[in-house]
């Protein structure tokens, strides 16, 4: 049953019309990128992300990173995977609903989150062959479940992400900023380098 489902997904996966919030372009169905950046508390960040447009209005996406804090603080690992659903689209502007599952860990402290995003993407052609500029703004509502040992807490907060990507043929270069509007006021700024496929 699962194999049949995966096969069906693979069959419908094909280059489709460009919708920035789904991560595709006219020539490609997805992208993969690596990222480096800075984060709150003087930390540095290394990570990566991907997006794969499975159908004209559905894409699978994921991202993960390691946040390295100054010594002697431990590092933080984060991994997220989700699905983007196109809910409104025009030739250059698109809006997607982006539910995801996210996991995070600092030593014995664990977090599971469900970020529900509303990604608004817009692109414009640049002079030259297959060159374009993409912009994305994505507010999130985040439900978070945190625990350490037997102690747990649940919380909800709002977060936001904004990014800009320059695509030249199959290469993409971008910058992205994310900020959580909660007690921690966590933020990160990262540069991305990737390819479309």
């Amino acid at each position, binding site marked *: 049953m699962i194999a049949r489902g995966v096969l069906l997904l693979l069959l419908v996966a094909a280059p489709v019309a460009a919708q920035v919030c789904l991560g595709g372009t006219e020539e490609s169905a997805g992208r993969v990128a690596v990222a480096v950046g800075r984060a709150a508390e003087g930390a540095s960040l290394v990570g990566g992300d991907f997006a794969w447009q499975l159908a004209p209005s559905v894409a699978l996406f994921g991202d993960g990173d390691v946040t390295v804090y100054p010594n002697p603080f*431990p590092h933080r690992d984060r991994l997220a995977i989700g699905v983007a659903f196109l*809910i409104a689209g025009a030739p250059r502007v698109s809006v997607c609903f982006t539910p995801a599952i996210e996991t995070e860990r600092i*030593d014995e402290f664990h977090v599971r989150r469900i970020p529900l995003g509303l990604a608004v993407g817009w692109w414009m052609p640049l002079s030259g062959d297959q060159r374009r500029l993409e912009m994305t703004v994505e507010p999130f509502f985040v439900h978070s479940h*945190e625990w*350490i040992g037997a102690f747990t807490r649940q919380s909800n907060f709002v977060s936001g992400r904004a990014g800009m990507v320059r695509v030249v043929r199959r290469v993409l270069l971008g910058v992205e900023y994310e900020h959580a509007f909660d007690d*921690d006021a966590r933020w990160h700024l990262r540069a991305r380098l990737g390819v479309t496929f």
Partner: protein
Amino acid sequence: MRRVVLVALLFAVAACADRSPLAPDAFGRAPCRPPSELVAMVITPPFAPLAMRSALIHSADALTLLIVGTPQRDLQVAFRSAATKIEIGDYDSACRFVALAYGVLRTLPPTPATLPERDAMRLILALTAQSLSGFGRE
């Protein structure tokens, strides 16, 4: 367009949900820093957190005897976990357990019968917090 408005409305309503008030320092998504209120209670030269291990275990075993119910269990678990984490050098987790123990301690009723135990636990937590904040964590 209607769908976009609906999803945005859903966000706004859901974001109004409450948060748990217990020991927010313990659940921070950045590396843990001991509660500043606790650190400010004592002033000492920097010392190794390992020096507090026995006092933390004593808190879990003896000082919680007069506390009853869930707070007693929570304090015992938090003190023991802090001691264990200090022993293996996991200071971030130890700091979170110290913040949790302090959060539970603050919820205890101010009954005269438990005053000596509560004061002793507070002092032990303050000293542990001081050692964790000073031991290479500035």
